[in-house]
């Protein structure tokens, strides 16, 4: 009777001495969270884009008439930022998966917050635009921009250090 084959070795390499114990679980949770946020965000903001195209197709007065330029601009910005930030969250998740230890709570929080604040601010500012002025929702935009900046810096530093 032949002996049973040796159990397959773990695909993971030997523990990284730079990564604190329990870090893998943190990274896995982060990957999961950002993949979900990114893909759901993409679904939402692509749907927003389709809705905006529909408004163009039917020449909806509230969207295409004179005097609605600010609304149109801000809704388009909301759609564009939402879509790209969704992709950015997916990219962050893949980065964390590729580079162990790249995840940090601050970067994760920043990128998730920016995914909501930036497009949300543009969309609300557009929906409640008054003449050439956006609605109060646009106040969320600078906060989202700062969060995005923080997230990008933190991830860049982490990735650089690991490289």
């Amino acid at each position, binding site marked *: 009777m032949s002996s049973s084959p040796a159990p397959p070795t773990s695909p993971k390499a030997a523990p990284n001495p730079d990564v604190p114990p329990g870090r893998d679980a943190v990274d896995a949770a982060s990957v999961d969270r950002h993949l979900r946020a990114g893909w759901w965000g993409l679904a939402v903001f692509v749907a927003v884009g389709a809705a905006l195209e529909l408004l163009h197709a039917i020449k909806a007065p509230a969207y295409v008439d*004179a005097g609605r330029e600010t609304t149109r601009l801000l809704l388009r910005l909301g759609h564009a930022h939402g879509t790209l930030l969704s992709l950015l969250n997916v990219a962050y998740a893949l980065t964390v998966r590729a580079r162990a230890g790249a995840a940090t*709570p601050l970067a994760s929080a920043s990128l998730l917050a920016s995914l909501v604040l930036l497009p949300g601010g543009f969309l609300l500012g557009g929906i409640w635009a*008054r003449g050439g002025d956006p609605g109060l929702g646009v106040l969320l935009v600078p906060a989202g921009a700062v969060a995005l900046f923080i997230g990008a810096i933190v991830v860049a530093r982490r990735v650089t250090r690991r490289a």
Partner: protein
Amino acid sequence: MLDAIAIDRSAASPAELAALVAVAVVAGALAFRALRGRRALLALFGVLAVVTSASASLLRPAPRASAPAGAPKPGTALGYVSSSACLGCHPGEHASFRRTFHHTMTRLASPETVSAPLDGRPLELDGRVVRLERRGAEVWATLPDPDRVIAGDPAAGDVTRRVVLTTGSHREQAYWVAGARSGDLRLVPFVWLVKDAAFVPRREAFLTPPGAPMPPVRWASSCIACHAVAGEPRHDLERDGFDTRAAELGVGCEACHGPGAAHVERHRDPVARYAQRASGGADPTIVHPGRLPPERSSALCGQCHAYAFPRDEAGFWTDGYSRTFRAGDALEASRTLITPAALEARGGPVIDAPASAIFWPDGAVRVGGREYNGLVASPCHERGGGDRKLTCLSCHAMHRGEPAGQIDPERGGDRACTTCHGGDRAARHSHHADGSVGSACVSCHMPKTSYALLSAVRSHRIDSPSAASTLATGRPNACNLCHLDRTLAWTARWLAEWYGAATPPIPAERARTAAGVHDGLAGDAGVRALVADALGSPASWAASGGGFQAALLEEMRRDPYAAVGFIASRSLRAVTAIPPERVAPARTPAERDALALGPDGRLDPARVRALLAARDVRAITIAE
């Protein structure tokens, strides 16, 4: 539809604030989960939230203006949707239309739409003071009570009222305040001259006899037919008030394209849009002026650029032309074109102004802005047919060219004429150097013999220069509006030599005195205004040379008609700016005599007195 009124000017709504908070909470929750309760990082996000909130305090909401009381209300005529509805599908046309002065003909008064300075500077008139000032997003005027002034009360008290509407933006801008009666609008007694950047009393901005009161003007009766789309005066005879309505203020898209509701509704369907494009045919839901028969396309412009009188006067006071004329219709059903013959006809329209102030004795209209009257009396319109019939669109384009003249770039220069009048004969027959002003078709066949807004305007009745006509009608001929230093006899001689025109007997004074000097001093007020304008034009300097304009204009500045004096002053400023090398060519004694110049280069007082004694002093009022 009255965009500025329709825009939501309210402050932040509860729904807006709730949505803002909801988004912030969602973002906070996501961040919280990611941070897993780390206090330092939570504090960082807290700081971020506080900074964002604090930035809200930096937002100073711009002052919002409510619609002025007395502004026209939305119209009731069916099918109008306003120009704003056109933008979605026709952004290029909308943009090219918005840069025209048609678009800005009438606007709700605001600091953005009022061209005049709103610093409250005192504007003195007859010992009274008028002021225009800004109050937040509103414009207010202090003026003698306009209704009392019109009633002839010299002691009318001052009133301070919000300026409701502006009229004009190209040459002049006038301002309207609420009158005493409901819905009535009255003019501020000063207008702003846009190019001159100056206030002038309204009575001096038009050609009116000295001391004569300006005819009382009410926006809802005098202006609404042309300065708004589908205007409805809705005059209340008992109260003498108005419930004025308009589909759109200013000359909007639907003035020329007709009511757009059916068009907009149909073309919300993308399939219908592409099917329409593929068909290549005319869209039955909208008027395309370029596809109209020549008479109908000209009627589009003629609805405003004509002297006309409503056929149903009582109906006009209620509905204006909103129910009797739409783009694409003929004018005749809704109005009678005013001509000298129509005024003399039994039962014809009765207007305030004498016919002599509106028409030259040969029937040519002498008031600018009424070009349709000239067009339809032109041989090129009367005798042309099909594509060879002269229409407004033969030269003009609403969506192309410079806003000032709206000349179609493809029809600029002589091209509008040479499509029919081509060939060598046409090229040679001007007897002026190629490319010179004198060689241009319009210089001879459309001279500036109409008057409006302190300027000479080209006649739109196409004709040829004639010394005989000048003698018979007093209307300056094209030759002498450039060759101001030449006599009418000189013109008659060249017209006879070049074109075989019969030479009329020229009175001695006209054979001796240059036409510019004669008409500038002895013509009627309308003629003097035209000459004062011509004296300041580079075309006349090129043809006449210099050396006499300043002396003549100095005399003309003292004209009893303020408008003539104003134009003379403006031309004098232009003349004094001519480079010295172009001024004062050597004049022969005969030429100096024709120009009534003394040896010192000044006008001969005796000749001036004689010409002033011979002046045509009949009262001329051109309130345009």
